């Protein structure tokens, strides 16, 4: 088992801003996990990971001269809405510098549980520069998968 799982988010910023959508091939997600992740290359990535593993997200622009950054990642509850846990998470002030989105999957999770999350991407400034998807998820793998 690897101690870390990296999730890369590649964004076609011009396409996403033009369509006002991260769908239609404007965003694809991949990870380097070895536990049987599914949905690689799309926006419905399910990253299989084990409790204790470090999960790191990073956004990169397809065109290096366009801006993109992760502005937030919030885990969703059973109703598909962000839970209070995420609402209480400290928002990173943009003046404090670059944010690194990384965290350890807590121990004691039930294998097979899926944790969908909302990932919000900021592309430049303005009201229409922030887009999100609710489709990716982390899936807790069982001990027999490692």
């Amino acid at each position, binding site marked *: 088992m690897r101690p870390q799982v990296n999730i890369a988010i590649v964004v076609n910023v011009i396409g996403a801003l033009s369509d006002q959508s991260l769908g239609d091939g404007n965003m694809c997600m991949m990870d380097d996990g070895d536990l*049987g992740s599914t949905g690689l290359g799309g926006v419905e990535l399910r990253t299989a990971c084990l409790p204790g593993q470090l999960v790191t997200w990073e956004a990169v622009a397809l065109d290096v001269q366009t801006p993109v950054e992760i502005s937030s990642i919030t885990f969703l509850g059973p109703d598909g809405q962000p839970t209070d846990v995420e609402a209480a*998470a400290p928002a990173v002030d943009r003046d404090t510098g670059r944010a690194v989105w990384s965290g350890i999957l807590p121990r004691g999770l039930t294998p*097979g549980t899926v944790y969908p999350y909302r990932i919000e991407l900021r592309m430049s400034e303005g009201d229409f520069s922030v887009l999100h998807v609710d489709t990716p998820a982390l899936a807790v793998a069982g001990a*027999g998968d490692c």
Partner: protein
Amino acid sequence: MTQQAGIVVLIDVDAAVESKTLLGNTYLVDNTGVPGCQEEGTEALVTDMQSSHWIDGSQADEQILNWLLYALGSLPPTLPRNYRSDQVRRHERVGHNDATQPEPGHDESAGQGARVRRRGSGVPGRALLDVHGRVLPETADGSHLAHSRPAPVLVDITGEAVDLKIIYPALYGSPDRSTEGWYWSATVDTSRPGTYAYTMTVELRELMHIDGGWHWMPHRMTFDAAIRITSKPCLNGFTGAGIGVLPLPVVESPPEPFPEIVAEPFAEPLVEPLPVL
């Protein structure tokens, strides 16, 4: 934010040549979108380079600077690179249809190549186009004043920022059509915050009629700009500080099975039961 920075240098070539200075005739704009940029739209732009560092002070991200030079009163820089030769060829084809005799000064090889060699009063190297893409006549007249200004050429980048090894500028080849295959770029050492000046040496070309012929006269001029580097710590987006556990919601039961991954049952206990005495 992950992005290369671009600085557009727009020069009023006629005014600069006439006044023999780039001051007041150069307009610098960058795309960093940072409110800290100063003097944007003038020749004294201070580009704000926001970077970040890890907790041990080491550089956490790299910054890249690109410079693109454009001239006021020129053909749009986004035109295809062979636009000029295509226009000349089209112009000559029309001329051949109108008259069986080639125009005075016409080079027979011009229809096959990208360049027109002019005789007599011709311009060396290239046919002249105006800003609408029309080929200007051979003989000098008032329309020559409307010729498309050639793009300024960045010759060198020097100064404090280079001497102190804050930026590492170099001329790179590129398939980009708007720069005719060449552009200046620099990596930035963002581990040393501060404001650093640099000097750009630019060559402008002026069309002059000398001794019965047209010549491009080069003019080299300089101007100063600067970059301001700031560095802030990298923070974790979840915690606002260091790495912690992911803030997962409390789930009473698995809301959705994950079919691809099935937890295997516990293996047989490795410890054998004690024998019954």
